[in-house]
């Protein structure tokens, strides 16, 4: 004989309970509380960090304020040093371009041959500096070319060509501060002047002088 069991559910839907040991109606508020607590903890941590950072910042600010005057003096000294360095640098450029020719000129008097009379000795003028190039809005601080060259012109009278050649040969060594080996005979002709009953010869030699280089 078959036996049958009858399952009778007399509970209303609102009275039903889950068979799970974890009940949602309990877990949801707990989760929400945990979330709130977690957020509050996080806030607390952030706030603590913020306070620590602010304290540290105010400590540093105080330290900076205390050292400010001393530091400003150092900065001033450093700026002054930078300015002086710039001055020194520019004056070093000037110094590099200083020409010293007194000694070779003194020596020159010793090498002039007997039969040569120097009538003129001169350095050629320097070309004008162009500090306001065409189209430029403002003048330049200075020239961009840092080398200057000039010529030494020696003009005189002689009786024949050999003393002039001898003078040029003498100038070819020991006069490096005054002249380079680059030279040009600008003129060599008969002059109206006379000596010992014969017409003299005039000559003009142009030497390129050593460069004045304004550089370190």
């Amino acid at each position, binding site marked *: 004989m078959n036996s049958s069991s009858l399952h009778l559910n007399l509970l209303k*839907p609102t*009275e*039903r309970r889950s068979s799970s040991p974890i009940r949602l*109606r*309990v877990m949801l*508020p707990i989760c*929400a509380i945990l*979330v*709130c607590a977690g*957020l*509050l903890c996080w806030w607390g941590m*952030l706030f603590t*960090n*913020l306070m620590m*950072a*602010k304290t540290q*910042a105010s400590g*540093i600010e105080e330290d*900076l304020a205390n*050292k400010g005057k001393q*530091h400003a003096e*150092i*900065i001033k*000294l*450093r700026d002054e*040093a930078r300015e*002086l360095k*710039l*001055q020194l640098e*520019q*004056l070093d*450029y*000037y*110094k590099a*371009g*200083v*020409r*010293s*020719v*007194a000694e070779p*000129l*003194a020596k020159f*008097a010793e090498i002039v041959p007997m039969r040569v009379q*120097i*009538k*003129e*000795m*001169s*350095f050629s003028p*320097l070309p*004008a500096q162009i*500090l*306001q190039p065409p189209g430029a809005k403002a*003048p*330049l*601080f*200075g020239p*961009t070319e*840092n080398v200057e060259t000039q010529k030494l012109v020696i003009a005189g009278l002689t009786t024949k060509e050999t003393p002039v050649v001898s003078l040029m040969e003498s100038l070819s060594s020991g006069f490096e501060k005054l002249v380079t080996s680059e030279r040009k005979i600008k003129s060599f002709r008969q002059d109206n002047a006379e000596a010992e009953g014969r017409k003299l010869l005039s000559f003009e030699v142009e030497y390129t002088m050593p460069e*004045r280089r304004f550089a370190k």
Partner: protein
Amino acid sequence: MNGGVFDNMAPTAKRSFIVTIVLFAIAVVIYLFCLQPCEADLERTRRSLSELQDKQSRMNADLRNAGTVKKDLEDLNAALKVYQDAMLVPLLESYAMRAKTLLDPLILGAGLQDVQYNNDTFRALPLPNPIPRQLHTRAAIKVTATGSYQQAISFLLRLEKEFPLVSLRQLGIVSQSSPEHQALTFVLEWPAKGGLTRK
């Protein structure tokens, strides 16, 4: 969730649901009005702290180097002293008159005569590019005199010895009737303060 489900919920479940909703709302409020502003503030404070720390470390480094800076300054001043003494400073606005006061003893010592001092063209000091500022110029004084070649050389030798930073820019020796009275022209160049074009 529709109203039917909520109506069918047990009163305890309903209570639980409402409490959960309220708690989540509180969590949102905490996040929006406490956490976020605090985080932003902390971020700002950290940034400013980092800047302050950088500034402090730079300042400390500068203060540690104070001795070196002072030493550098002393060395630079000593090096510049030589130049500053050699600088041509105008006398009552006149460079030529300053040159006269400096050169007269040398001219006298060399025995040159009929001496005249005049300003010549000042030139800018060539400097490498880019030029930050022109601090000095090349002041030029034209000295004309009469005398022998030996006297001229004697003057130049004295000049180079006394004023090592003076440069002979131009020279002109033209013979006259007497070798003792040649026409002499010297254009002498000094360093002087100030740029030529822009200050």
